[in-house]
């Protein structure tokens, strides 16, 4: 339980730091880079290495490549949708979320869906 609480606190803090940095950076296209900052990974790495070892962390990092591919498709989709049809940012961001899952599931199965 304390492990989850620590993850929650460290994750919240790191994501907040990256988001605040993105707020103050200009131009916006540059600040947008921080939208894909490895904040969650950074927040969990120390605990993962401590509890499960470096090999376990390496396996998680390999899977991150799949997650990043899904994120790329998702971010491009959100950007295109907002430029082309101008819906609200929340609608665009939520409606494109299935694309992250589709790429993610495809890669998960491609990776063998193993532990």
């Amino acid at each position, binding site marked *: 339980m304390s492990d989850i609480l620590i993850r929650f606190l460290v994750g919240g803090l*790191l*994501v907040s730091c990256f988001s605040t940095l993105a707020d103050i950076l200009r131009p916006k296209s*540059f600040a947008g880079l921080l939208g894909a900052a490895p904040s969650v990974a950074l927040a969990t790495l120390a605990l993962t290495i401590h509890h499960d070892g470096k090999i376990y962390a390496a396996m998680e990092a390999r899977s*991150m490549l799949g997650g990043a591919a899904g994120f790329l498709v998702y971010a491009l989709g959100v950007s295109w949708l907002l430029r082309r049809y101008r819906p609200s940012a929340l609608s665009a961001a939520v409606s494109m979320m299935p694309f992250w899952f589709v790429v993610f599931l495809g890669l998960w199965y491609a990776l063998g869906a193993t532990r």
Partner: protein
Amino acid sequence: MRKIGFSFSSLKETRFHEYVARFFFGGVCTALAGIIARRYGPVLGGLFLAFPAIFPASATMIENNEKRRKQEIGADGTQRGRIAASIDASGASLGCFGLAAFGLVLWQFIPQHNALATVMLAFASWTVVSYLLWAFRKG
């Protein structure tokens, strides 16, 4: 290429509840990534380290801040806000290549090398790859 700079005035535009929302979503996503990794193993858990959990909240904040700014000078700002969110998403798509570089460095180097040094190298890779792609794209 536009010069990179800082605008601290935007800190005042972000409301307290928006800071709280970021903290909460970031914390929940990180905790969930840990729970999923523990329950289903590192292959599935690792994928969630690159989950865009905070993205909808950030995009909405960017849209609202831009809209608010325009409304203060009497304009509607709705379209401008959505374009700003689109530019942010486009920047995030470049950052995804940096995120992949981060994962690649960790995957390849962490088993045999010092963990802290590898994490620092991975973070440097994210920064350099993201920045170079942004700089080349802007010309």
